[in-house]
């Protein structure tokens, strides 16, 4: 049996997606190249997860900000969170604010992925601590371009 990649759990050279996680609060074993996709739409989580897995991230999902905090408190500290704005229970802006208030999560990159496109809303999110902002609808290339700008695109992944 070949050595498995400690991050992805895959054999060397195997770029296929790991076994799909069934839904929110499923916590991957490792977060070294982790992404946390936070959106109340399962469809949107599915789209973003496919994009992130394709370039080598291990992905956890959460249906709102509170679920995302639960995932992170349980030990999954992602490299990046992709965050919707309008969600039930806890919205994306409150999540960003809470994460930024916790020193142990200072290294987590926060990227809003939302339909909120008013200038004032973008400014609010960035002021709260979001690093990047993607407006829906987006293409996979738009997400990969942002990852590249943030220095989070794995070297072997192409944009």
């Amino acid at each position, binding site marked *: 049996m070949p050595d498995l990649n400690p991050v992805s759990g895959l054999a060397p050279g195997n770029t296929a997606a790991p076994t799909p996680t069934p839904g929110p609060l499923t916590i991957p074993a490792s977060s070294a190249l982790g992404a946390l996709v936070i959106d109340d*739409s399962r469809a949107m989580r*599915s*789209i973003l997860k496919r994009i992130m897995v394709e370039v080598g991230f291990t992905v956890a999902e959460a249906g709102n900000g509170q679920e995302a905090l639960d995932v992170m408190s349980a030990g999954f500290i992602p490299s990046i969170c992709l965050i919707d704005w*309008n969600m039930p229970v806890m919205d994306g802006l409150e999540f960003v604010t809470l994460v930024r208030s916790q020193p142990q999560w200072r290294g987590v990159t926060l990227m809003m992925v*939302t*339909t909120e*496109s008013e200038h004032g809303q973008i400014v609010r999110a960035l002021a709260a601590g979001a690093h990047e902002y993607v*407006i829906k609808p987006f293409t996979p290339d738009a997400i990969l371009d942002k990852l590249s700008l943030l220095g989070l695109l794995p070297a072997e992944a192409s944009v």
Partner: protein
Amino acid sequence: MSIPVQSDVSSVMETPNVAALISFEDLHAILEQVWASYLHSGDELVPLAAAPAVEQISASVSVSGAFMGHVVFATSASAATQIAAILMDLPPQEVSEDDVADCVGEMANVLGGNLKSLLPGPSVLSLPIVMSSNGGNAMRWPDATVALESELTWHGEPISVTVWAQIDPDL
């Protein structure tokens, strides 16, 4: 109080204030951007003269603030299943009712968010509401009227987007 209702759903009715802010070109550009970004099937949206009576899945989001109104995305059950299959990356036969509701709701959310950016702000967007009906537009809101409506086809199935606006009692 009676609620104004369009007598002919295939006709186009605009209230001056919304039409001045959102043109059909704006609406179609947003729709085409959503289609190109998420559905990328190569099939174009084609304007439709008359809406056939079929089982509909509708989702709405409400805009509250400087502009008060609602954006509705509606399509047939068949097209909704195709949309969900593409978005969820599932075979159509594995798409559940929950998947369809989730995907149609997200379409309304994305369309509503983009249309909101063309309207007076600040305003907030509600979470989507999804309804299924057997033909016709079953969604109604008190003191609101259809301000902008576009009906098209995709894969031979109906697609429509409707913007509802609150009636200003001072007018």
